[in-house]
């Protein structure tokens, strides 16, 4: 776990809580997350390197750091993931490894935050609107690292003050819905009673659930909420 310990930066106007759970038989995992501060907000990263153990953890770490170098200036999530894809493809003689990633650019606004979200083969993040519903955000593009020239597109979303964004890996879906993973129906139902609660409440709820389960797969998540406070 040492290599994965991560300090989530304190950012004005935002509450950000991370959760990370490694599968029962493994000491290192292929899931990763990151929060990178930027002048007007931050970058939010959640991803999953295919495979298990050392092989997956090595790819996860490389991808996390490579993405970090792409978050600078007037960066765009779609351009960053497109570049990441070329880097991971170029590092392999033929395709053997890939990862999935959800990357969001978050910018603070006086009454909430603006998001731009790209999904490289990754499950849709969910937004818990204060008064409902639970909505999917982001648009789907291909997995990262398998095919050169794959196209990546991002899509916008807004969080009003109090809305909660949940970015997660599919390990969370597996825990909630047994083996019917890659279907978020059960997760969305589980989140319904948490509408209007804090990011901390949502993270605590998910952590309890994951702590009480035998994990066949890693699970990672980020919970983000726009809270009253300093705005850009």
């Amino acid at each position, binding site marked *: 776990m040492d290599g994965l310990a991560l300090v989530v930066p304190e950012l004005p106007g935002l509450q950000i809580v991370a959760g990370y759970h490694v599968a029962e038989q493994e000491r290192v995992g292929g899931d990763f997350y990151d929060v990178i501060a930027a002048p007007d907000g931050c970058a939010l990263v959640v991803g*999953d390197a*295919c*495979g*298990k153990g050392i092989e997956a953890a090595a790819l996860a770490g490389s991808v996390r750091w490579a993405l970090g170098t792409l978050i600078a200036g007037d960066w765009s999530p779609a351009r960053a993931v497109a570049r990441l894809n070329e880097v991971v493809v170029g590092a392999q003689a*033929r*395709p*053997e490894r*890939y990862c*999935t990633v959800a990357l969001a650019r978050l910018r603070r606004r006086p009454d909430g935050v603006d998001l731009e979200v790209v*999904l*490289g*083969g*990754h*499950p*849709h993040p969910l937004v818990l609107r204060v008064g409902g519903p639970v909505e999917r955000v982001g648009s*789907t*593009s*291909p*997995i990262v690292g*398998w*095919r050169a020239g794959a196209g990546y597109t991002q899509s916008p979303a807004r969080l009003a003050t109090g809305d909660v964004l949940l970015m997660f890996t*599919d390990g969370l879906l*597996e825990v909630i819905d047994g*083996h*019917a*993973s*890659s*279907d978020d129906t059960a997760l969305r139902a589980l989140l319904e009673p948490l509408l209007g609660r804090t990011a901390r409440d949502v993270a605590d709820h998910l952590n309890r659930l994951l702590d009480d389960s035998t994990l066949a*797969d890693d699970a990672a998540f980020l919970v983000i909420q726009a809270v009253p406070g300093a705005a850009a």
Partner: protein
Amino acid sequence: MTPLSLATERQDATLRVRVSGELDLMSEAELTAYLLRAVADPSATSVVVDVSGVEFIDSCGLRALLTGREAADRADRELLLATTAGPVTRLLDIAGVRGWFRYE
């Protein structure tokens, strides 16, 4: 847990590989080896991978299908997926790779 089960039928120059059970880290290597043998079969020009009996698939299972697809390209063979709506099509959609495969 339903173990992976693999079977092949031959119809003229087409090999039909029926995959059922769970496609995950535990079964990835077995399916990958099976598909690589199928696309290398000199008497077959196309391989149909019928995944309609797959009950669970994760990113490792997807990698096996993608690896088979790449190997078929290199061997100048056609690899087609036969699917019904279910775990495989759901994962292909989330992974954004539905268009990377051809379908029977």
